[in-house]
Every structure is written in structure tokens, then in C-alpha cells.
């Protein structure tokens, strides 16, 4: 088995694993009892999507997609920070 063949097999298997992780995260997203659980699931989904884009970059050889994966992980951090800020913001009309 040559290196390129092994890489193709490994990336396909890793994409399947990521799909499984995505399904597990979606179950928790639907079930999650609190808003914070769902925010955590969105953060995880962003990270899974960045991983899938990175694996796609390896599969196709279009390494431009690596930049997109990095940018997506940055945006994921910002969205989590913003959501956490939203979670502790006082209710409108409440006295600070």
C-alpha cells in the first residue's frame, strides 16, 4: 500500500469518525437541558466542522482550506465568548 493510498483510506475513516461525533453532539444538542449545554454543543460542532474542513484539505490537496479551518476555529472562540457574555447579562428592566 503506497502512502497516498493509506492517506486516502485514513482521511475517509477520520471523516466517518467525525460524522459519528457530529451525530452524538446533535443528540446532546436536542436533549441538553440548559442553554449552556446547547452553547457547548455549538462550540463542539464548530470544532468538528473545522476538523472536517482540515481533513478535506488533506484529501483534495487544496491547502487553501487549512486557512478556512483556522479562521473557523477563531470564530468559534468568539461566538462562545459572546454567548457566555449573553448568559450572564442582566434581564432587561432589572436593576444592576
Amino acid at each position, binding site marked *: 500500500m503506497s502512502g*497516498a493510498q493509506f492517506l486516502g483510506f485514513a482521511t475517509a475513516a*477520520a471523516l466517518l469518525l467525525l460524522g459519528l461525533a457530529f451525530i452524538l453532539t446533535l443528540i446532546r444538542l436536542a436533549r441538553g437541558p440548559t442553554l449552556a449545554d446547547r452553547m457547548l454543543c455549538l462550540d463542539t460542532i464548530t470544532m468538528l466542522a473545522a476538523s472536517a474542513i482540515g481533513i478535506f484539505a488533506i484529501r483534495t490537496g487544496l491547502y487553501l482550506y487549512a486557512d478556512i479551518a483556522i479562521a473557523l476555529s477563531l470564530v468559534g472562540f468568539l461566538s462562545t465568548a459572546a454567548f457566555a457574555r449573553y448568559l450572564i447579562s442582566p434581564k432587561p428592566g432589572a436593576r444592576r
Partner: protein
Amino acid sequence: MIDLAQYVGGVLVLAGGLFSVLGALGLLRFPDLYTRLHAAALAGPPGLGLVFVAIAFTSLDLAISSRVLIGIGFLAITTPVAAHLLARAAKRSGVAFTDHTSDHTTGPKAK
């Protein structure tokens, strides 16, 4: 030489996928938000970081490798910060612990 880099990259990609699955499994199975946060924030950076290292190995290009390594450094800094922010916000908004954990600020099993 290129063959060797591709073998290493394939193994790294598989390890990254495995980390992601284990993190998602912890996210599904653990009893409360704080333990789930532990699983997701601990397994997330290796999952994505190993894929990034695999990109650096298979591309064999200095520009791409350096960008990807900077991305890993950023990931290692931001993920704990995001997890801390989320846990702090959840604690302040009153998300409950499981019965197995105790709250050190108010004593064990305090209401």
C-alpha cells in the same frame, strides 16, 4: 520521504478523529454541564490540533506549516479560556451540579 510523511499524516488524522469521537461521547454521556464541559474542552484541541499537524506533515510547505502551527498555538490558548467563560457564566446563571459534585464556595451539598 513523501511516502513516510503521508503515512505519518494518515495516522495523525485517525488519532484526531478518535479524539473527536471520544469528546463527543463524553458530551453525550456525562451527567451535568460541568463534566460535559470538561470532556469537550479537553478532547477538542487534540482532535483539531492533530488534524492541523497532519496538514503540516502532508503539505510539506513552510508557509502552510507555519500558519497551521500558529493556529495550534491559538487553539491551545483560547479553548481553556472559552471553557472557563462558559463554566463561569453557567455557575452564575444557576446551572445545577450533579449530586456527585460538591461546591467548594458554599460547602458540600449546600442548596
